[in-house]
């Protein structure tokens, strides 16, 4: 690089500080507990229960998010109707809502004596402090990550391709399945990665709405919280597990997106790994 020496030093300094700050907690996780003890620690029944709860609840929540969120994203991206802006705002609300508020809101809605909770109770359905409460909490806080990305992905599909499919005799449903969906896949996948990461990391709404019951509603993040006083090394080990999970999800997404970049029209939510060429 030519010229602007002092300015470049300033930029490098800022980058150095930021990167150190971001890397420090991750490095600390791996250095504060001897790594060879981690497999043993993770065999603890409390951890195994938490893994089971996390996997089960997140699997259901992710299916709900993708199955319901995809058509919602398509509708909001492709149709103009009254109240569309309001609908999008509502979809985005959980992004900025404090998770604890989401938790208490869910409690007020589905809890005993709540808005719909009373009726559910009469029908013999109890949601708060069960695994279904975890599922609802995760779905509530994580869905906007997917739906927002789905809207962007569907908006990115060239409108004339959809029109072309229609004039070629394809019904709206077939056009969606054969044109819009395949072309939006990369964007949808990116949205799902974000939603998945947010769901696995869910804490605030879950602890308020579902409590922290071991083997029932205690997810990995809640287990970290419980083990802070009881067994700090165990908490660290769970932390390592989650870092590895998040890291590999992000990395596999990036590899996937660079692999299929050529055939996709969706914008990428993460920076591309090889964008510095030229």
């Amino acid at each position, binding site marked *: 690089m030519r010229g602007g020496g002092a300015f470049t030093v300033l930029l490098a300094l800022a980058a150095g500080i930021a990167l150190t700050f971001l890397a420090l907690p991750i490095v600390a996780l791996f250095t504060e507990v001897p790594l060879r003890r981690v497999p043993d620690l993770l065999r603890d029944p409390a951890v195994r229960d938490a893994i089971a709860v996390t996997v089960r609840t997140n699997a259901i929540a992710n299916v709900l998010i993708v199955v319901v969120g995809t058509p919602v994203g398509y509708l909001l991206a492709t149709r103009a109707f009254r109240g569309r802006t309001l609908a999008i705002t509502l979809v985005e609300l959980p992004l900025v809502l404090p998770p604890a508020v989401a938790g208490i809101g869910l409690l007020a809605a589905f809890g005993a004596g709540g808005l719909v909770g009373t009726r559910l109770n009469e029908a013999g359905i109890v949601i708060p402090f069960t695994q279904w409460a975890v599922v609802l909490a995760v779905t509530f806080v994580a869905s906007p990550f997917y739906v927002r990305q789905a809207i962007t992905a569907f908006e990115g599909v060239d409108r004339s391709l959809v029109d072309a499919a*229609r004039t*070629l005799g394809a019904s709206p449903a077939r056009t969606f399945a054969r*044109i819009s969906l395949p*072309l939006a896949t990369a964007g949808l996948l990116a949205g799902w990665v974000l939603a998945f990461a947010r769901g696995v990391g869910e804490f605030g709404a879950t602890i308020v709405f579902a409590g922290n019951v071991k083997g029932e509603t205690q997810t990995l993040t809640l287990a970290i919280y419980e083990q802070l006083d009881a067994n700090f090394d165990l908490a660290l080990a769970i932390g390592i597990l989650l870092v590895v999970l998040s890291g590999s999800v992000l990395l596999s997404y990036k590899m996937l997106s660079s692999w299929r970049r050529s055939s996709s029209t969706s914008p990428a939510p993460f920076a591309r790994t090889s964008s510095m060429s030229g």
Partner: protein
Amino acid sequence: MGPSGAGKTTVLRAIAGLRAPDRGRIALGDDVWFDAAAKVDRPPEARSVGLVFQEYALFPHMTVRRNVGFGAGATGVDALLQRLGIAHLADERPGHLSGGERQRVALARALAREPGALLLDEPLSALDAHTRASVRAHLQDVLAQLALPTLIVTHDFRDATALADRVGVIVDGRLRQVATVAELVRHPRDAFVARFTGGNVLGGDARPLATGGAEVLLDGGTTVRSAETGKGRVGVAGYPWEIEVATAPPAANGVNAIGGAIDGLDPEGDRVRVRVGELVAECDAREAERLGLRRGDRAWLVFGPESARLVGAA
């Protein structure tokens, strides 16, 4: 044919069912696709129409064969690819094709359903100048073989002359004139049509002559004669290929001549367009060379009264 923003594409979209007009009726023969009064509005997939989009709108995630075979009831895909000379591209993706190849694929895709009508939206505008001529010729051959009602939208008069039997000139959503190319040139209805078909239009004031025809005092000060009669404010429309270039004022009486310095000399193929003021004439390149035409030289543009058509005020 019309300038951009005239509503050409909107007409095609309305016919294809991608846009509902406020009023009117669209039918192919006895098959009514749209009728505002009768509340008929068939969806695009229920209209027997093939639409070729301006940028071709090929599906990027499908091979050429699957693009062409996408249409409901698409038959004889490989035979069609063969006929359009793109069989060797069957397994390629659109991203790897040239503009001319894409155009053929889009055409094949629109034809695969055996539609009752074919719509082409600016079929040549996405191409660069040197592929344009060959694709135009190819399209001409294909359309001639098809014997299918075809509606082509273009802003280029040359595309219209090459491809169309009848031309409608549309401006601001209204049809100004519908006629054959020859008829458009012979009797342009107004100044816009005359200009759009390549003509010069000069403003002036007309006075009918007792001997027939009219005399027009042009805004530039010259008086010209027209074989057509007219009165008051008019436009005099003349086509470049009907105007001769001379280096001396014509001796013959009864012909029109507008003299002045040559402002522009634009070669176009084996022709040269010579501009004097607002008026453009076209002559053979060899003729231009023989006359020794140069920018700034004095020249006379000569045309007969029958080449000075009177149109509505410019």
